[in-house]
């Protein structure tokens, strides 16, 4: 099928297009030079904005922890439901939508590629079953490897290459996309109810430190030539004073950087940018982190913005979730996974009038505004931890409009307002910068070649928003901007119109992308390995990998490793 999008204002930062009026031609799911004008279906995008489909680098949408969150919270769903239509399945929201609804709601906002950031390898089949039931978007998932016993043991012995071969095996067998590290070492300690406090704490029984794990996996990542960097949830997350840990984490691999390329992604950085000795004296550490990031090129970040709403927190960081339970007294789920990782879930309500929550809200925006280069920081809420992904348009409005920020600042806790750096920040992001932070930058950081841009050969994943950059001043009319990003005029996936006139018009299954990592000497499933496997896990080695039939549409990406 051919499609021609005419006369839109195109924002394609990767290809240096900044709001120029031009046509975009689509054929067989790809962007092409031109199409047969008479035959092609035409979309008149006059007075509208055309962008690559949105890319989300970090949002918890599938797998065992997300589903435990769903199960835990009927009260989150019962008022927010979606009826079945002629083309769509029914479902529920709010903060942890059911799978179909997740896909539809992303599509409604013009998003087309989603990264699910935490997959316990043992339960990877579950993640993939859910991803296969998440329509409208392409997706991928990051296996949790920072506390995997094999990794800890190889790194302790300094066997980087063996470790790399095993990581290659696990990424390929779990159909994963990147190395995810959560509170390195802390989750193993949590197995007995403990945690680590600094990068140099010894992990009980394993004679290794978080610093060694992060550095080791960073080296592994490079040896394997993976498209994305290591994806790190820092130690001490959610604790006052932890901005120092975040800085140390970035510094600890500084020497491994080459060619000004990013080698680490610090995710939901807001939660790692707390200054102050305790909750009472909590302050923003955004400035310190921004200064560091502005001076270095080996780091990318995402915001992890907080929204004032009732949401559900869920991370693999078991000890952090327990702390949240203690703070809030809300119901608490813990799910430790043998030999690998843990997970925790606690419902949480961010309140404008709470000092801590208001400071957190401010930190996220400060990070995004103080970091000068939009290619280094991306828009996320760490869905659903800071708030549901459906609140992205709200964040876009805050980033583009000082006035929007002031409107919210007026309503927050007064002490937090007086401490916030936001009143001193005049920066208002442009549409180009928003396009970078919500798609181009994310795609680039992920190494997704066909996503996040509209160049010839790119995937025809396109969002059209009903906004005319020539007539609208986003600084003043931020509400209109918010509304437009909330509901795309058109969402196009694989070259097909899937969303228009406020409705899903086509149910389309997206692909699951995964890395087929080729190493010269693959990790062998030897008898010794089989024996260790039996000792470590309670399932048979044969039953551990995710076979391709678990992926509705499988899209392997070949990676040639350097080992």
């Amino acid at each position, binding site marked *: 099928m051919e499609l021609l999008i005419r006369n839109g204002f195109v924002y394609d930062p990767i290809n240096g297009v900044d709001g120029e009026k031009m046509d975009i031609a689509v054929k067989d799911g790809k962007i092409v030079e031109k199409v047969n004008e008479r035959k092609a279906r035409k979309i008149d995008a006059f007075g509208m904005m055309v962008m690559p489909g949105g890319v989300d680098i970090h949002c918890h949408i599938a797998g065992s922890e997300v589903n435990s969150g769903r199960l*835990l*919270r*009927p*009260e*989150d769903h*019962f008022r927010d439901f979606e009826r079945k239509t002629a083309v769509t399945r029914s479902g529920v929201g709010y903060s942890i939508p059911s799978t179909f609804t997740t896909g539809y709601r992303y599509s409604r906002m013009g998003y087309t590629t989603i990264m699910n950031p935490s997959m316990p390898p043992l339960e990877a089949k579950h993640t993939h079953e859910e991803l296969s039931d998440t329509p409208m978007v392409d997706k991928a998932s990051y296996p949790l490897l920072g506390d995997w016993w094999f990794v800890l043991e190889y790194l302790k012995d300094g066997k980087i290459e063996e470790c790399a071969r095993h990581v290659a095996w696990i990424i390929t067998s779990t159909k994963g996309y990147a190395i995810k590290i959560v509170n390195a070492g802390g989750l193993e300690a949590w197995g007995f109810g403990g945690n680590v406090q600094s990068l140099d704490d010894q992990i009980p029984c394993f004679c290794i430190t978080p610093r060694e794990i992060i550095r080791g996996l960073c080296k592994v990542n490079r040896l394997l030539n993976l498209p994305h960097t290591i994806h790190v949830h820092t130690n001490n997350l959610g604790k006052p004073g932890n901005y120092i840990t975040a800085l140390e984490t970035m510094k600890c691999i500084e020497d491994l950087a080459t060619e000004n390329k990013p080698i680490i992604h610090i995710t939901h950085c807001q939660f790692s940018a707390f200054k102050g000795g305790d909750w009472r004296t909590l302050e923003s550490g955004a400035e310190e982190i921004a200064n560091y990031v502005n001076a270095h090129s080996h780091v990318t970040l995402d915001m992890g913005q907080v929204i004032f709403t009732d949401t559900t927190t869920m991370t693999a960081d078991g000890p952090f979730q327990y702390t949240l339970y203690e703070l809030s007294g809300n119901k608490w789920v813990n799910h430790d996974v043998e030999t690998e990782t843990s997970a925790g879930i606690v419902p949480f309500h961010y309140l404008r009038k709470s000092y801590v929550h208001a400071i957190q809200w401010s930190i996220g925006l400060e990070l995004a505004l103080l970091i000068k280069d939009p290619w280094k920081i991306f828009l996320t809420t760490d869905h659903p931890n800071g708030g549901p992904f459906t609140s992205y348009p709200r964040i876009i409005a805050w980033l583009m409009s000082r006035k929007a920020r002031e409107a919210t600042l007026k309503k927050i806790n007064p002490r937090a307002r007086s401490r916030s750096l936001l009143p001193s920040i005049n920066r208002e992001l442009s549409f180009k910068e928003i396009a970078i932070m919500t798609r181009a930058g994310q795609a680039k950081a992920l190494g997704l070649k066909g996503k996040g841009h509209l160049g010839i050969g790119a995937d025809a994943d396109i969002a059209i928003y009903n906004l005319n950059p020539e007539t609208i001043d986003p600084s003043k009319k931020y509400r209109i901007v918010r509304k437009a990003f909330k509901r795309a005029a058109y969402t196009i996936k694989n070259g097909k119109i899937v969303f228009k006139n406020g409705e899903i018009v086509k149910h389309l299954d997206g692909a699951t992308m995964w890395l087929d990592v080729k190493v010269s000497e693959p990790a062998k499933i030897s008898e010794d390995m089989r024996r260790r496997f039996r000792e470590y896990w309670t399932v048979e080695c044969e039953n551990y990998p995710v076979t391709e039939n678990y992926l509705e549409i499988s899209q392997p990406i070949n990676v040639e490793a350097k080992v």
Partner: protein
Amino acid sequence: MITLTPKKEFRFPVIAECINPDIFHDKTTKEIEELKIWEGNKQKMLGELFKVEENRTENPQEREAITINGNLNKVRRIGAGMKSGEIIIHGDVGMHLGEEMKGGKITVHGNVGSWAGSMMKSGTIEIHGNVSDYLGAPYRGSIEGMRGGKIVVYGNVGNEAGAYMKNGLIKIYGNAGQFLGLRMRDGTIFVEKDSGGRAGACMKGGKIVVGGFLESVLPTFTIDSIKEKVKIEEGETIAGPFYLFIGDLVENGEGKLYLSKEKNPHLNHYERLL
């Protein structure tokens, strides 16, 4: 005044949140008949299931009232979320009567299903009959119990009446089932007759008064004193004597559980601790 009469004996669940004085307000009979209602998995119009009659009256209070006559035990969500006006029902009613009610009054001359007055915020529900479980209790997974208002039941109630109650008053002139006032935080529950076991389980605050028999007090309650009388609401005090227990210890609770001394002689061994 609007009078509704079911046109048949319902077999499938009927979801009728449209039966609400706020929605009927200012609508003609025809418009009321066209309101959407679900019977099983089919959407219908109110007029297909109910005969709708309007009796003109000058009394402004009565004008807002809805009277329903007949067996409504399959009809759910009547008066859900209502803010004002009155519903009078002659017959049995199904689940979720007056759920999340914010004002007005519902009177039932008959029995009522579970979750009556669930998550109620204000208003009055008066039931001249029995009620099933979860009276005034929240939705699954939620801790938002009754926030205010008043529920009076002249018959018996099932389990978990007043669970997670935050405020308001529940008066039961018959017997109550198990777990009366479960996890309640404030407000008052009065049961004139007997209560099933585990009354006040996990309560953090509030007051439960049982005028009749309670088989045993949870081990996590501690005896405080014997009181001669206890106040139920403004202007209503019940004469005792009552054993006053404090609990639930497992929640570091300070809830008050009053039990009639006369009706509970098996609890006299607690007196040695006083």
